[in-house]
């Protein structure tokens, strides 16, 4: 138990890092500030490992430990503590949050080199990790909510880190506000939990979930799901995540791929006993939301040209997979995929950052090509990430995705073939768009020039890939100009001052470590035998409501499904190879997909149009009607007063006349009252 007591160190170290940077950050400067921050997260990782070992040492039934630091909000009969719940689920999350977090911190030292706000970046990054750890370690809904909002705020700071660019500033605001819609659901769930159970502590509400009436359990589950939709970027609230790519690339890797965006999935996994008590339609709603999001985002990813946008939509799509798994009750596969995804998506993002760095801030894949020549380590690690996400065995993504697909088809009571089919098509699309990215970036011809004035022939090559029309090109140019800043961008071709280069060690070491993890990460949960289900056995105490497979899921069936998934992946890769390497066909990149089915732009149009008009009308109403009434009354009084002023003549005779008149009227009134 002693090592479990150390759990407070896990969030305390990043907090300490934040406070130290707040006070001394500017003095420390580059690169000390980054090193300090990295060391803090590294320390936090070591503390997590210590707690993990302590937890493993406990017998399975007592692998749940609560540490209370102090009372936060005690009112009436309510008790909300600042406390941590240590159990297999929270520690698993902590391990990969701090592990991946350390690597990304290290990477950032190289990536943010020369940025005038170097120390501020690490300040936010440490604060983010602290919030994220509060989110996963909190022993009650409100501490989780504290972390939940905290990561949202950090996400806002970091997306708009380069605040001088209005687009980046808008993206940060959009992320925060969109997330707040989800937070609204989270808050209502907390209220409902308090109202129904008088508590929001996990051990109590999850243990007491059995005594919840179905309607209440449904309400709480659905409201938390609304929160998860916002944070985990599911349809219809996913719009903020692609825009969030405006932030520095390490931020995209850490926050918008590996950790924060998975917290919705984590939350639903955490409250699995409540979902089990909810109405029977709740799980299908979650599953179908996930499935639809997965497919929808995958179709969009197919046509993206920005190297990070592909990964962004890919993240939305993969989160959809996780949500699908949660929806069918397959919490372990959801967490499994969350972990492998953290490895390979962090790897891919960091790799893309390395590319962008090497390409002098260029992000348009149509201006890349054959980069494996210049950046061998980046290319090699990126390719491992690609194989993992594409579901090529034996890389990690294959195992986790396969398990989700298996449960989608065969989870008892919740799985069905329609869900499976959507998942499978998504897998094919995933393999396709990721291959497209790898081929466009690392293979094929160089579609850029290195300090040369000859534009003509390269321009032609570019137009092969982007034959759709001048519009898209013009758009891309505007983007490129905005992004590249001082870099001269002529016509379609990027001219680089200096060759694309490999990144410094602080950047490629994390890539290498993540590549190893992405390659062998599947080992934590191997399908071959029950004994190899390490993750499932480990998470068992936290997830009492894991769904079971139907009897139809025989070994033969499992193998068959796995083969089918591999074939789908192979088809996706094959098509991409045919189009982008062999150039046998024109690329299929419909403009409607590049624009994300016009979904985001429709929302923006609505918000900017009728939405804004409605707000303006309210403001006008306030000014003219509400305040108008006040001024009207004032004016009326004034005019009446002015009118009556005339009667104050100062002549006794006119006053006497008034008195006489009044007396007569009074007399008349009393006479009228007399009944005869």
């Amino acid at each position, binding site marked *: 138990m002693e090592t479990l007591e150390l759990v407070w160190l896990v969030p305390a170290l990043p907090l300490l890092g934040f406070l130290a940077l707040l006070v001394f950050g500017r003095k420390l400067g580059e690169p000390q500030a980054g090193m300090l921050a990295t060391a803090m997260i590294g320390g936090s990782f070591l503390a997590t490992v210590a707690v993990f070992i302590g937890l493993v040492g406990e017998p399975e039934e007592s692998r749940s430990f609560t540490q209370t630091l102090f009372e936060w909000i005690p009112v009436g009969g309510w008790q909300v503590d600042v406390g941590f719940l240590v159990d297999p689920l929270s520690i698993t999350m902590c391990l990969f949050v701090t592990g991946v977090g350390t690597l990304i911190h290290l990477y950032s030292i190289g990536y943010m080199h020369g940025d005038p706000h170097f120390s501020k970046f690490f300040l936010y990054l440490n604060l983010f990790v602290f919030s994220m750890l509060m989110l996963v370690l909190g022993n009650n809904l409100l501490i989780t909510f504290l972390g939940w909002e905290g990561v949202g705020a950090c996400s806002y700071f970091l997306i708009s880190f380069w605040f001088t660019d209005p687009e980046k500033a808008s993206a940060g605001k959009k992320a925060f506000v969109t997330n707040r819609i989800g937070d609204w659901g989270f808050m209502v769930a907390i209220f409902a939990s308090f109202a*129904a159970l008088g508590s929001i502590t996990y051990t109590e509400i999850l243990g007491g979930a*059995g005594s919840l009436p179905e309607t209440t359990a449904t309400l709480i589950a659905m409201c938390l799901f609304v929160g998860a939709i916002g944070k985990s970027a599911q349809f219809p609230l996913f719009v903020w995540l692609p825009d969030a790519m405006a932030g520095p690339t390490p931020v995209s890797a850490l926050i918008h791929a590996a950790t924060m965006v998975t917290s919705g999935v984590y939350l639903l996994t955490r409250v699995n006993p409540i979902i089990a008590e909810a109405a029977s339609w709740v799980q299908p709603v979650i599953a179908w939301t996930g499935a639809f999001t997965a497919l929808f985002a995958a179709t969009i990813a197919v046509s993206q040209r920005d190297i990070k946008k592909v990964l962004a939509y890919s993240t939305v799509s993969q989160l959809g997979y996780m949500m699908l798994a949660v929806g069918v009750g397959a919490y372990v596969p959801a967490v499994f995929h969350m972990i492998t995804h953290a490895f390979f998506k962090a790897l891919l993002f960091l790799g893309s950052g390395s590319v962008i760095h090497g390409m002098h801030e260029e992000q348009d894949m149509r201006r890349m090509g054959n980069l494996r020549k210049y950046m061998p380590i980046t290319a090699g690690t990126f390719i491992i990430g690609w194989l993992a996400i594409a579901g090529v065995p034996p890389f990690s993504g294959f195992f986790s995705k396969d398990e989700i697909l298996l449960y989608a088809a065969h989870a008892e009571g919740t799985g069905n073939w329609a869900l499976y089919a959507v998942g499978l098509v998504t897998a094919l699309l995933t393999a396709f768009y990721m291959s497209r990215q790898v081929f466009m970036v690392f293979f094929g011809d160089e579609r850029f020039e290195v300090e040369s004035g000859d534009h003509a022939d390269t321009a032609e090559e570019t137009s092969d890939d982007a034959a759709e029309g001048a519009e898209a090109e013009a758009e891309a140019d505007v983007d490129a100009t905005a992004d590249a800043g001082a870099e001269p961008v002529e016509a379609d071709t990027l001219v680089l001052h200096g060759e694309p280069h490999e990144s410094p060690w602080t950047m490629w070491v994390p890539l290498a470590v993540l590549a190893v993890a992405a390659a062998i990460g599947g080992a934590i949960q191997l399908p071959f035998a029950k004994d190899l289900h390490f993750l499932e056995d480990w998470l068992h105490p936290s997830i009492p409501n894991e769904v079971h497979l139907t009897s139809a899921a025989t070994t033969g069936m499992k193998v068959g499904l796995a083969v089918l998934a591999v074939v789908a992946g192979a088809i996706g890769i094959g098509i991409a190879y045919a189009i982008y390497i062999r150039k046998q066909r024109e690329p299929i990149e419909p403009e409607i997909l590049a624009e994300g089915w016009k979904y985001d732009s429709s929302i923006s149009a609505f918000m900017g149009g009728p939405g804004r008009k409605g707000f303006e009308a309210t403001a006008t109403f306030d000014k003219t009607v509400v305040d108008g009434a006040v001024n009207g009354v004032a004016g009326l009084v004034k005019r009446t007063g002015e009118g009556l002023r005339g009667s104050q003549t100062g002549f006794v005779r006119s006053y006497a006349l008034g008195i006489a008149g009044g007396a007569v009227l009074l007399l008349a009134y009393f006479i009228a009252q007399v009944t005869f």
Partner: protein
Amino acid sequence: MHALPLLAAEGGAVVRFPLLTAAVLVPLIGAIVVALIPKRRTEILRLVALLFSGTAGAFTVWMLAAFDRHDSGMQFESVHTWIEEFGIQWHLGVDGISLFLVVLTGVLFPLTLVAVTPKKDPKPYYAWLLLLEAGCIGAFTSLDLFLFFIFFEIVLVPMYFLIGGWGYGQRVYAALKFFLYTMFGSALMLVGILALAFVDRDTKVDQSAVARQQLAQLEQTVQSQLGAGLQVDPALLDEVEILAAEVEASEQITFDVVELADNRAELLEAQQNGDLPTDPNANSWNPLHWGAAKWIFLAFAMAFAVKVPLVPLHTWLPDAHTQAPTAGSVLLAGVMLKLGTYGFLRFGLYLFPDASHFFAPVFLTLGVVGILYGAIVATMQKDLKRLVAYSSVAHLGFIALGTFALTTQAIEGGILQMVNHGISTGALFLLLGMIYERRHTYEIATMSGMQKTAPVLAGVFTLVMLSSIGLPGLNGFVGEFLILAGAYLTAKWWAVVAAAGVILAALYLLWAYQRVFHGTPADDDPGTPDMKLGEFVVMIPLIGLIVFMGVYPKPVLERIEPAVSALVERIENTTDFTEPDAATSGFSGTVVDSHGADDDDHADESHAEDDGHAEDDGHAEDTDDHGEGE
């Protein structure tokens, strides 16, 4: 975990020094002293003002340290007869409801004096500010209706002159509007105060009818005995004396809030217990019947609704805020608006639990409308000060919601939010003042990219903004959360709709922040200078409070709680309102052993099991009842 040593000090009763009287009189004397300082000695004006204001602030902090956190009643009471015939008293006291408002006033005034210097005429400026401070502390501590009314009115005068004298362009219009609007509300309140006092007197007279009769009889007996030349029985004379005192006391009019409230509560409680006929109109010795209470409550409520302000009576606020000088805005938002919300608690819920309960849906609705409407209108404002003013309308809507939800959590959250709003909005207006010093405008459209040259200002602004948005870990969240969660127990749909206000709050503030601080400064912009050290130092106490009250609000909450519990209990005893169990009882579910249920259990089956548990356990049925409203 124990409270901090300073805050844990107890024993309010042992303080002999009349702290509250001193806290009211010191700034008042200060105002006079400042007014008497010769015009040419302007350099010492600020120092003198700060001295008096700081002393009063020190008294309030002393009071906080000496406050007994277990006592639900009035502390540091000071009672002196003032106008005997009308039973008007100098009666001051604080309880958990007013404690932090007094401290907030005591702290915010000196801070404002340090932070802002007037552009002209420092002498009247400081005098008015000190008078305003005396009025505010007086209003928060008065326990005599008449005295309260005087303080409530007094504060209008300095604020009127501050806006009119040191404000911006349309200051005269704004000052007049502010003054007349609030006067209109308080005129009704005066009628209510008088009506209440007289009706209460009549009640007492009626109640003493029996005693009066007895007295008359006894007097007759005494007379007859005297007439017969007999020795009068001394016991009889004693009895006459006692009865005479009782009769006389019943004829004494009083404005004492505690006494009036207790008199009412006694009657209402008797009514609830069935000791009085339920139809109050039929009851001849309860003239303080329902009809009167309703109207008197509404008269009070009108005054407070204007002051808060509740939508649609809010339009004086944006004008007053926009035109007021920085100090005026800080104190108007930070302290004066709370007179309204505080009034609702002290003179609404406390004096009229019956009418408050009856009209609660109206005020809940006005609160929720204020939250959404204020936020929407704030979004579209082009002037930073107007934007913050409308955000106040939204925040005070939250407080109204909390107050009239009538649960311990909601009311406590409401009180906490009054303090929080004072800190955060006060800080926000100070920051706007700093921006104005640099830009000479409040117009959002003229600003851009200020974060580039003023990163510290931007950082502090961000923190205060996040506190106003209600980010957990900062002060605003705790109050907002308690209000909403507490309101959910008794006014579920209001709470659910109100919670959507947090989305809008993020929208208007972040958008404003983006337009002011993000982006690049205009080409002809020389760059906005960053915060000076002095400015930052002024902000430190506010920043500290924003973080402290977000991370560790317990010392504050535990001092508010006894008074609020007593208030809720009073409402429960005097009306048919019952606070839901969930507010008071803590965890009420049954913990099911999660390990027993796992292996052969899946989603569908677990429902069947759930029914089984419900039958097993009484608690489970309890929770069933709570859940029915869905």
